[in-house]
């Protein structure tokens, strides 16, 4: 094996993965900061502002505190499963970022293309859906192995919730795939160069937003960790770094959902109402930088909407939650899928 092929198949992907992991971990830490800060604003408070200017060093202080805390394993717990469960939660959340293209590929010279993505898999969406649904194992294992009743209840609720909402989520994503005609994420982004899919697929977008909130176990669907009922839900017995893993996994999922929504519905790195070709003619590096910025702005706006939802709505009851999932979202998603399929078959031949 020559050095070039080694670099192509091992070296560059590894470098990309390391950079992506660092950037994503940084973004996730500051998502926590942004969330606390914005929640404070929504509740007429100021949020964390003591550590550093505007409290900007707060996530680092939090992380340091969690690392230094004692790692407790309860006497009733099953130690092996208890130790391995946080890894099951955090790995799928970070792996999902591998297929997201954050910026248009950088074209240098004739035919040399550097894509801003770890691996543009041709079945990217399927990969993403299957990987993110593995995250439920972390939660179920945590609840089962803790040897305590509250985590068990929390994990059971979480399992049923995540399985129920996986279906409308997948169906709403399927309509996007029908419109784009490809499972590859970069193809889907390219298909939105004229119009973001959020406008023609408004139903699918709504279903996606609601079921994404439920998938990431956030208010108003945060039953698995409802503090007033279940102490802390599935991570009641966790402390120190293992708890931090669950925390990170939750927020990594939030960031992932924002990035996926940006790619699938909001047009990804495409600048709205500006044709891509005219920009590309101007300057290739400028196009990539602008694309990255546009992607970031869209994702942060979606994140803002997410936090806004959290600041507004109270928690649903358990039966209401499942009824919304099965009796409202699923029919809407199915109807939308049929409509899109019909339009695609008869009108957009």
């Amino acid at each position: 094996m020559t050095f070039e092929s080694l670099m192509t198949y091992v070296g560059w992907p590894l470098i990309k993965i390391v950079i992506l992991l660092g950037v994503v971990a940084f973004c996730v830490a500051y998502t926590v900061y942004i969330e606390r800060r914005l929640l404070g604003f929504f509740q007429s408070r100021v949020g964390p502002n003591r550590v550093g200017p505007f409290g900007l060093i707060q996530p680092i202080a939090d992380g340091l505190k969690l690392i230094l805390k004692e790692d407790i394993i309860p006497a009733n717990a099953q130690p092996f499963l208890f130790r391995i469960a946080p890894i099951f939660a955090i790995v799928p959340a970070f792996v999902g970022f591998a297929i997201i293209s954050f910026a248009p590929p950088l074209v240098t010279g004739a035919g040399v293309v550097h894509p801003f993505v770890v691996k543009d898999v041709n079945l990217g969406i399927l990969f993403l859906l299957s990987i993110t649904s593995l995250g439920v194992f972390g939660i179920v294992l945590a609840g089962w192995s803790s040897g305590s009743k509250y985590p068990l209840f929390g994990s059971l609720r979480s399992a049923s919730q995540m399985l129920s909402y996986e279906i409308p989520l997948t169906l709403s994503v399927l309509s996007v795939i029908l419109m784009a005609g490809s499972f590859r994420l970069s193809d889907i982004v390219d298909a939105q160069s004229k119009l973001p899919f959020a406008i023609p697929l408004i139903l699918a977008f709504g279903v996606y937003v609601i079921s994404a909130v439920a998938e990431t176990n956030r208010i108003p669907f945060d039953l698995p960790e409802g503090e007033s009922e279940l102490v802390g839900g599935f991570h009641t017995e966790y402390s120190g770094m293992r708890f931090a893993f669950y925390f990170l996994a939750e927020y990594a999922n939030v960031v992932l959902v924002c990035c996926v929504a940006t790619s699938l519905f909001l047009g990804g790195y495409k600048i709205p109402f500006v044709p891509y070709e005219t920009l590309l003619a101007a300057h290739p590096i400028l196009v990539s930088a602008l694309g990255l910025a546009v992607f970031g702005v869209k994702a942060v706006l979606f994140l803002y909407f997410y936090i806004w939802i959290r600041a507004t709505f109270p928690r649903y009851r358990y039966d209401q939650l499942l009824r919304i999932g099965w009796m409202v979202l699923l029919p809407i998603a199915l109807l939308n899928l049929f409509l899109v399929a019909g339009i695609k078959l008869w009108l957009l031949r």
Partner: protein
Amino acid sequence: MPGALHRLVRMMTFPELASGLGVTFKWFHKPKVTEFYPDKRPVLPYRAKGRLHVDLETCISCKMCERACPEDCIKVFQPPKEVFKTDKRPVQFFISLEHCIHCGMCVDPCPTGSIHHSQEFEMASYLRNDYLFDRTTLPYDLDVKHFKQGILENVVEKGQ
């Protein structure tokens, strides 16, 4: 049928959710109620009952405050009789802030207005002796000029 249609429209557009989102968005832009105390000093009300201050130059050692105090935290020592005829200023004046409940009962009977509440409220200390104010510590802590100016400023603010 129109009722059903109306219900369907309401179900699909979520007007309640939108109004809820609107309420939180309104509060997002409102000024925050949090007081940034150590960074910014709070504006105290005009009659805030802070630490007791005594103007030992105008005090006539009448012991009215000592008698009025419900917690017995004030102790006034008159000068000897010969001196008292000409100079009525106390030889010693104790105020124990450990016992003071900031009720203001000593301020009301004072004929000369030499005992009063100040605007000072940061009284925490690690030493118990710091809470016992006597003749030597009281006048030095006294800032009558500043206090009176504060009142004047408050009055002016109120007048506006």
